C-alpha cells in the first residue's frame, strides 16, 4: 500500500488518472528508453576507440604498387 502523506502536488492541473492512460505510459516508456540510451552512449564515450592505422592516400598506394612492380 502506498502511503498518502501530505499531498502537496496533488494534480495541480491534470487529473492523476492521466498518468495511467496508455498514451502517457507509452510516452513514459519512450522517455525512459531515450534516457537509458543517452546514459549508455555517454558511458560509451569513456572507452577508447581501437587503434587503427590511417590508410595511405590512394596515390601513395598506387606509387607503392608501382615500385613493387
Amino acid at each position, binding site marked *: 500500500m502506498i502511503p498518502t502523506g501530505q499531498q*502537496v*502536488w496533488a494534480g495541480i492541473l491534470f487529473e492523476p488518472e492521466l498518468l495511467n492512460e496508455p498514451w502517457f505510459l507509452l510516452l513514459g516508456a519512450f*522517455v525512459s*528508453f531515450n534516457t*537509458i540510451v543517452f546514459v549508455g552512449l*555517454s558511458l560509451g564515450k569513456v572507452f577508447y576507440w581501437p587503434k587503427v592505422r590511417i590508410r595511405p*592516400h590512394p596515390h601513395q598506394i598506387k606509387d607503392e604498387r608501382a615500385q613493387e612492380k
Partner: protein
Amino acid sequence: MRKGAAVGSSIVLIIIFVTLLLTTVDALGAKYFDGDPFDDEPLAFRLPGFFIAEVPGPHPIDFLTISIIGIILVGIGSVILETLSDLRLLNPEYLELDLNLQPGPLNSMTIIVVVPAHNEADNLPVTLPALMQQTRPPDRIIVVADNCTDETAAVARSLGAEVIETVDNANRKAGALNQAFSQLRRSETSSDIYLVLDADTSLSPQFLDVAEHYLAGHDEIFAIGGLFYGEPGHGLIGQLQRNEYFRYQLQIKHRRGRVFVLTGTASVFRAQALLGVAQARGNLIPGNQGEVYDSASITEDNELTIALKSLGFGMISLQECTVETELMPTWSTLWTQRKRWQRGALDNLAEYGVTTATARYWGQQLGIAYGVVALFSAYFFLIVASLAMEYVHLYIFWLVVTTIFIIDRVGTVWAGGWSARLVAAPLVIEVAYSFFLQINFISSLIDLVRRKKQKWGHLPSPAGVDRS
C-alpha cells in the same frame, strides 16, 4: 580560480553530497531494517512539506533490455559510419589529380603560417611575436590583409611578416585565403606545410614542433587539426562553452584523434593536399576550379575538412596541438555563431550528398535530431507528470541513472576546474544550455527549408574593430 573560491565550491558540493547521502541512507534504512527487505513497501523519504515515495512500479528490466539493444544498435551504426569514413577506396578519379605525395625528410620541411586578417592591427602585435616563440618557429609568416581599414598591413610588415593584400575580395575569409593560396602555389614544394591561423588565436608553445615531427613520421597524414580551448572569462555563458569544448577534446582523445572538423582557427595542411583540393574543385568536389576554399560555404573549415576526406587525405587531431579560441560573450552572438555553424554544416552536407566521406556527418546530424526529439519529449513528459501526480514518486533505478549522468557530466569537465564542475553538477544548467542549442538547430533546419540566407555574424574585438 582563486583558492578561496575553490574551497567554498568544495564545501557547497560536500554539503549537497552529504545531504543526498543521509536522505538515501535514512530511506534505505527505514525499509531494510523494517523486517522484510523484499516486501512491496515503498521507500519513504520524509522531507518537510512533502512526501517522496519509491513505489514498486513496473519492473524496469524489460525496457532496460530494450534500451541496451538500442545502445548496441546506435553503437554499431556509429562504428559502421566511422569505418566507411576511414575506408578510402581506390577511386580512379582521385588518381587523375596531379600530385606529388612523397614528403621530404624532416630537416627539409618548410612551415609557412598564413594569417587571414581583417582589421587586426591590434591583435597582430600579440599573435606574431608569439608565433616566433614557438619551440619550432615558422620559416615564413604571411599575413593576408583583407579589406582592412586600419593599419593591419603596416603593422604586419613592421613585425617582420610578409603581407598579401587582397584585391576586390567579396568572399570573406575563404576568398582572402583563396587569393593567398593562388599566389603561393607556384613556389611550393612537396615538403611545404601550411598553418592557417586566425589573428586572434594563440597556440600551445610546441604546436608546430609536434605537428612537424608527426607529419615527418606519418606520410599518410595530410592535415592536423588544432584542439580548441575556450578563452577565460565571460561568466556563465563562457563556462558553458568551455565545458562544451572540454568534452569535445575528451571525445577526440578517446577517438584517438579522429577529426570532426579541422578548425579554421588553427590547422596544419600539407601543401599537396591543398593543391589536390584546388585541382578537384568544380570536378570531383563542389567549388570553383583552382580554389582551395569553397567561397560559397559559410563554414569554410568544415567544408575543407569534408573536401579533404572526400579526396582520400588522412587527418588527425593531436592532444599536444592546442589552440585557445575566442568565446561568444552574449547569448545573441552565440546564437548567430551556432546558427552559422549548424547551417553551414547542413549546407555542406546537402552539397556533397551521402558519400563514404560524409556518412559520419549525416549520422551526427541524425544524432542531433534524435536528441531534439528525446529532450523535448522528456520536457513534455516531466511537465505533464508533475502537474498531474499526487505525490513525488522516486525510483531507485532512476536515482542511479541520474547519479551516473551527474558523474558523467562532472567527470568529463573535471580538467576544467571547480567552476566547470559546479556548472555541470546540477544538470539543469547544462540541460537549459542544450535546450538553447537544440532550438538553434531547429531554427537552422527551418531556415534551410525556407532557403533563408544565413548571416556570417560579427564580433567586434575589445578595441572596437571588426573581427568578422
